[in-house]
């Protein structure tokens, strides 16, 4: 059986939805890239309150994806999308509470496995993911755009969570890792090879966290 037939919509309708969505929310992609680059800059140039700002940026992106993408657009063709929206809004609330309000998150690059993994994933989400999509035939406006579409946003988030100082925040990782599995299935269901990287990102971050936990125990 063609895997696309496991879904209630066709790949054709899915990419048409991206076109409608991307055109409707323009210039949100520009703002998303500006915020993403700002977050990355704050990871390299920490300053007072930087963690709160980065967390607030991530919270805004997850809330946008939950409400604008999943609830308003994707729900038109996918009856499960409202549940996805709830997950994304919950993740936004977790970032807002833990990072923006409590100030418990410090994002900082460090030259170890977790640090390089995080940096690579963040840069990949910004530049590599759209290029890979382009090679697969998914060019503007029929593409998942960083910051306003779930998959590149999740890869970026996994990258930044690898750069959080101190012990791994598993409660912040749970939903992005879950989405890596759900979104990663699009590689097979919707013929989006760029989404295979979600699964690789999850493995890389999971591996880095496991290494961190082992180090902490010893």
């Amino acid at each position: 059986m063609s895997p696309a037939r496991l879904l209630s919509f066709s790949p054709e309708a899915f990419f048409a939805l991206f076109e409608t969505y991307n055109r409707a929310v323009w210039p949100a992609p520009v703002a998303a890239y500006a915020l993403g680059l700002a977050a990355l800059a704050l990871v390299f140039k920490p300053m007072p309150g930087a963690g709160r700002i980065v967390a607030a940026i991530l919270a805004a992106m997850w809330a946008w994806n939950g409400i604008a993408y999943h609830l308003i657009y994707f729900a038109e063709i996918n009856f499960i999308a409202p549940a996805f929206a709830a997950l994304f809004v919950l993740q936004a609330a977790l970032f807002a509470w833990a990072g923006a309000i409590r100030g418990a998150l410090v994002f900082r690059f460090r030259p170890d496995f977790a640090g390089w993994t995080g940096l690579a994933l963040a840069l990949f989400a910004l530049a590599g993911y759209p290029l890979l999509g382009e090679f697969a035939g998914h060019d503007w406006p029929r593409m998942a755009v960083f910051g306003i579409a779930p998959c590149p946003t999740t890869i970026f988030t996994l990258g930044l969570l690898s750069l959080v100082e101190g012990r791994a925040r598993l409660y912040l990782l749970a939903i992005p890792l879950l989405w890596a599995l759900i979104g990663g299935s699009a590689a097979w269901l919707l013929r989006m090879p760029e989404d295979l990287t979600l699964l690789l990102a999850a493995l890389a971050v999971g591996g880095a966290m496991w290494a961190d936990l082992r180090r902490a125990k010893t």
Partner: protein
Amino acid sequence: MPLFSRRAVLASLAGFGAVSALPRAGHAAPQPILTRPIPKSGEMIPAIGLGTWIVFNVGRDAALRAQRFEVMRTFFEMGGGMIDSSPMYGSAEDVIGDGLKRATISGGLFSATKVWIWGRARGVKQMEDSRRLWGVRRFDLMQVHNMVDWEAHLETLLADKAAGRIRYVGVTTSHGERHETVIKAMETGSLDFVQFSYNVADREAERRLLPIAAERKLAVIANRPFRTGDLIERVARHPLPAWAGEIDCANWAQFLLKFIVSHPAVTCAIPATSRADHAAENMGALRGRLPDESFRRRMIRYVEDL
């Protein structure tokens, strides 16, 4: 293997009525189309309907909506009547409603949709939403989709039928699932229609569902006639046998559909397509001869050997 007799098949074929068909220029010359009676009322409906799963769920995209409108236009021009959908199918009901506003419906729309939600009150609201999306005053057929909360919804549907808000009541399943629950519903005696999967490769329904439907005088809608495209893709790798011409099949779609609608207990098959040319091929199955029992066995053997 089929359990019905040659006599049953012949009696059924005699039951196929002819309604005037009126294709426009560009399609086959006008000739009678195959219709089947709804057992409980005797009302005749075309034996090929239009399914909307996946293919009509195209969101707001104007180009894709225009393509689906062409499918609907071809369907109606070639004598189609029943369109079947569900709130589960995303934007499909909205796309149908959009098409119905523009389509010229020559033979008469037979509107069929479903209720697919837990809770009686939410079901009422969902059906109201469906009426608004389709732009119809009332549905001809309302079905409980995949038996979700079927006992609660059945009460609503029977009340709606008594009040004239719908004309027929049914239940559905697919993929060969939930047959015991479907049989329980069929045995309540309150249904007019039942819908389940049936095609030349998936014939489990011949064992119990189709005989019970015939015994209970229920109209049968056969879904997944092409196994959501997989079956037709599989057979289309091979040439259509020359003997398919003996039942006036010009392509594999007609071969597969004529197998289904020639079963004496089947009222209607509902192939879904996103292409107008494929809709025209499907609707071609409404014309010409149908297979008898021995011919159906030959069709089964041929497909099994592919």
